[in-house]
């Protein structure tokens, strides 16, 4: 019979325990009565018969105990006894219990917090059926310095239905739209999607329908699918919403579907979906490399990523023979389309940081566990004799081990429950640290799954911790604790070595954690010291998206920006105002290419991706660019027929290493056009960090006048003499007076933008700092506990030595030496660990060597101070032992 079949019967018996006990008593009573009756019938006197029946049956209690064991109940009885005993012991030493529980709560809570993030971002499947078959396909031009340029609509139309390994292909393009009636408009994040977007993901509207092929024609695209959130908040969850109209960018769109409540595509904050409509020329072969969309696909069951990649490569190779003029250039740029798992692609950048943070949390847990083992060992040594007596009078080894396991597991489980509370708080704290802005960060949740993992972890930890304690308890008996004095037995010496070994381990682990935190901090410091290339103080920026209905063409956009700049200039405190298609560190960047007039590319030379932006007004002054040569672009350049542009020093240096960029002419794109379309370089400005402060590679940038290269999506930038945030309201109201339907969003000072761009660096550094502080505290507690115990244990020896003339300083020095020895051993191990850690962390560090001396000195210094401080009180106590009292007591 198998365990699995027997267990239910054991549980049934447990559940009906009172009935089981009653039945057993009744059965035995009946037996004895029947026997008595039989004896009486055979002629034995009644009183004698009852006595004999009871005697021959034997001890009813023993029989009952045997019966319970036969039913598999004994284990449970012992367990509940052990639990009660453990609880009593925990109550009797509140100091120990509180320390242990606090240690566990913090360590497990920290791990739970980080695990919730790791789970949401790296582990949990995306909320789509067979989500592991979803892939992302993007174009890469490595030789042009453009690793990921998304995909084009042309790619989508050329690939759908033609790649055998894909069962579905879909394109999407993120954007924003102004939604709502005049006076109550809001800018909402939207996504335009191809008709097969929802079917490729495997989830679509619960109300209404998905988009149709017909709706990809611009004449028939005025429809929308709402997310559940938008439907509930803006339309009160109207069940008859299908067919109703919403106003988008001034035009009416009919609602054709509503998505399920838990529909969420990657990190998208999109509230409304529109069809991705296009004119045929927008997806002609000429637009193949426009990179203005993203492409997802679903692998056919059984098809592998490699097959899909091979088919995409083959498909691209055929298309590269179609005679389009830029084929050669793209080949020179190393063009390829990569097929990567959707989720892995989405979280690739954050993965190492997250794993590192989780490793830090695990280190903290390890330190906490070591601490707990040491405290438990000390406690166990206080009851060596009790255990020895119990084993001598028949307590089995199994029972002694069980008892320890029950006690430690109880402690870790209780600590785990408290850790759940700490973890719930920690997840809130992460919100404050910006975890929601991580990819998939919105999925971070404290749920049954993470709680189950945490509690399982707590139980496993309890069992692991109980092993050394159980070993110690058993060993102390075999070593003859009954005969030995309270110290001097081999078990005590072994236990002492074990305790000291754990202190060394703890110091080493804390050292590694401190070094790791130091490396992250140093790296962050180096990043913060990087000059962004402009002056971010007192600069406010916000985003505008001019609807095409009111601003149909370039001149309309230009006219609006000119009015805006003029109006902003009239505001008190404004020093300069301008607009641009992008500001540095905005989180997005846009590269295209430029052709220098009269220069023929060398064979094999690939066109470079260059940051290309349009600017208006006094953009450069407002942002605080530095001027190297020539002049900045001004508002007048947008109105002038001769085209002027400004390039940055990186672009100038690459193309004219000997200087002389001024006066040179260039064309937008990869082809030379008519002379009238050439832009003359009128200025060279300092390079700015465009995408990230840690950008090391000089990409180059070209800035064009907005009037010659108009765009509807703009940033507005003001430099003020006041703190920038106090100008935010004024900026909003200026825009509203010019166009009541035009909201300004994403209003942030440039300082804030820089800070926000560093979330992925600052938050791990902060967390590591927090973990290190806890680790240092735990190390102090551990060292203090072990040394205090050593003093108490050697009280009589110390007293004797003092009675024989030892001076208190000598006693103090003895414990100081011990501490220094442990510290030295821990530090040596720690340096080795820190070196390994530094090597593992190189990928996330910025300009930091593997093992900086400052960090070693810092970590060593902190631990030295902490362990010496922890040793101060116990050694002081040792030096003040009164020989008389101690010897008389003994």
């Amino acid at each position, binding site marked *: *019979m198998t365990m699995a079949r027997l267990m239910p019967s054991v549980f049934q018996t447990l559940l009906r325990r009172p009935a089981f006990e009653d039945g057993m008593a009744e*059965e035995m009573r*009946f*037996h004895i009565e029947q026997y008595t*009756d039989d004896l009486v019938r055979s002629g034995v006197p009644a009183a004698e018969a009852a006595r004999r029946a009871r005697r021959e049956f034997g001890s009813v209690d023993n029989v009952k105990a*045997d*019966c319970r064991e036969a039913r598999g109940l004994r284990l449970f009885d012992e367990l509940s006894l052990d639990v009660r005993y453990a609880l009593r012991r925990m109550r009797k030493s509140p100091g120990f219990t509180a320390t242990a529980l606090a240690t566990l709560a913090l360590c497990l809570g920290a791990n739970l917090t980080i695990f919730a993030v790791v789970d949401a971002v790296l582990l949990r499947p995306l909320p789509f059926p067979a989500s592991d078959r979803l892939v992302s396909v993007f174009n890469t031009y490595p030789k042009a310095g453009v690793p990921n340029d998304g995909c084009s609509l042309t790619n989508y139309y050329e690939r759908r239905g033609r790649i055998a390994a894909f069962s579905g292909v879909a394109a999407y393009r993120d954007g924003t739209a102004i939604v709502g009636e005049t006076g109550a408009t809001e800018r909402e994040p939207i996504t335009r999607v191809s008709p097969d977007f929802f079917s490729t993901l495997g989830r679509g509207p619960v109300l209404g329908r998905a988009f149709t092929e017909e709706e990809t024609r611009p004449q028939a695209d005025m429809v929308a699918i709402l997310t559940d959130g938008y439907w509930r908040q803006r339309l009160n969850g109207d069940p008859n919403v299908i067919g109703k109209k919403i106003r988008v960018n001034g035009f009416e769109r009919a609602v054709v579907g509503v998505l399920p409540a838990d529909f969420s595509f990657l990190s998208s904050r999109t509230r409304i979906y529109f069809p991705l409509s296009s004119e045929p020329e927008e997806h002609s072969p000429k637009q193949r490399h426009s990179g203005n969309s993203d492409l997802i696909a679903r692998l056919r069951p059984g098809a592998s990523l490699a097959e899909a990649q091979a088919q995409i490569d083959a498909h691209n190779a055929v298309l590269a023979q179609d005679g389009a003029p830029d084929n050669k250039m793209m080949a020179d740029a190393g063009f390829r389309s990569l097929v990567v798992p959707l989720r892995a692609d989405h979280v690739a950048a954050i993965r190492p940081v997250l794993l590192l943070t989780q490793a830090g949390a695990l280190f903290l847990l390890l330190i906490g566990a070591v601490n707990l083992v040491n405290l438990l060992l000390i406690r166990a040594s206080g009851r060596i004799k009790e255990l020895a007596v119990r084993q001598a009078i028949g307590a089995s080894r199994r029972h002694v081990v069980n008892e320890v396991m029950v006690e430690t597991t109880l402690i870790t489980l209780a600590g785990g429950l408290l850790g759940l509370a700490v973890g719930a708080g920690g997840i809130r704290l992460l919100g404050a640290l910006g975890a929601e802005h991580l990819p998939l960060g919105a999925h971070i949740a404290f749920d049954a799954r993470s709680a189950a993992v945490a509690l399982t972890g707590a139980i496993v930890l309890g069992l692991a911790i109980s092993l050394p304690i159980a070993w110690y308890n058993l060993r102390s008996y075999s070593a003859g604790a009954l005969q030995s004095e309270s110290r001097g037995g081999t078990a005590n010496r072994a236990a002492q070595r074990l305790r000291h070994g754990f202190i060394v381990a703890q110091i080493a682990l804390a050292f590694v954690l401190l070094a790791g935190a130091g490396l992250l901090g140093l790296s962050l410091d180096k990043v913060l010291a990087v000059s962004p290339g402009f002056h971010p103080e007192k600069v406010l920026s916000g985003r505008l998206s001019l609807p095409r209905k009111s601003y149909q063409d370039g001149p309309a956009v230009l006219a609006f920006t000119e009015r805006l700049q003029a109006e902003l200039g009239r505001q008190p405190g404004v020093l300069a105002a301008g607009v641009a298609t992008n500001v540095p560190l905005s989180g997005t960047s846009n590269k295209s290419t430029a052709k220098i007039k009269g220069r023929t590319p060398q064979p094999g030379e690939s066109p470079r991706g260059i940051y290309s932006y349009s600017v208006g007004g006094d953009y450069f002054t407002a942002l605080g660019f530095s001027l190297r040569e020539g002049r900045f672009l001004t508002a007048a350049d947008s109105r002038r027929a001769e085209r002027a542009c400004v390039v940055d020093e990186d672009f100038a240096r690459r193309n004219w290493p000997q200087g002389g960029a001024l006066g040179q002419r260039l064309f937008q794109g990869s082809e030379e056009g008519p002379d009238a379309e050439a832009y003359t370089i009128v200025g060279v400005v300092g390079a700015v960090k465009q995408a990230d402060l840690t950008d090391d590679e000089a990409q180059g940038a070209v800035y064009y006048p907005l009037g010659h290269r108009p765009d509807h999506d703009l940033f507005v930038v003001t430099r003020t003499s006041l703190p920038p945030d106090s100008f935010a309201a004024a900026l909003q109201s200026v825009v509203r007076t010019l166009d009541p339907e035009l909201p300004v969003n994403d209003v942030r000072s440039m300082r804030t933008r820089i800070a926000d761009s560093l979330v992925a660096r600052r938050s791990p550094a902060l967390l590591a700092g927090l973990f290190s502080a806890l680790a240092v505290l735990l190390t102090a507690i551990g060292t203090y506990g072990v040394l205090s115990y050593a003093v108490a244990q050697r009280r009589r020896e110390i007293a004797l030595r003092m009675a024989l003339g030892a001076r208190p300083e000598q006693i103090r020095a003895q414990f100081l030496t011990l501490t220094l020895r442990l510290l030295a051993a821990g530090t040596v191990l720690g340096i080795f660990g820190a070196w390994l850690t530094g090597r593992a962390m190189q990928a996330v560090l910025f300009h930091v060597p593997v093992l900086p001396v400052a960090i070693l000195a810092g970590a060593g210094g902190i631990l030295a101070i902490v362990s010496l401080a922890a040793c101060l009180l116990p050694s002081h106590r040792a030096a003040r032992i009164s020989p008389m009292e101690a010897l008389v007591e003994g």
Partner: protein
Amino acid sequence: MTKTADLLPGTLDMLILKAVSLKPLHGYGVLVRIKQISGDALEIPQGSLYPALYRLEHQELIAAEWGQSENNRKAKYYTLTEAGRRRLEEETAGWNRLASAIASALNTEPEPGGA
């Protein structure tokens, strides 16, 4: 009083299965029945009967049900389950093989003219 034999280890379960295979019995009845079918030759130590019954019930070889005794008292009656019947058959066959092997071993005469 007739001479009683000590039980061989492992034979108690077999005897209990046999006793309840004849008709449903309460605990005391099992004891009486074994004594009776062994011609008073076997006596079960009363203390080991109930642990054995509980173990067999736990192994689902016998089933228990509360009923009325002959003198109208509430009593727990044990019956043989299907699994118990198979086990009894196996044990009986095994026992018979063992018994005849031992008997033939013990009956062996010394070989004439051995070396």
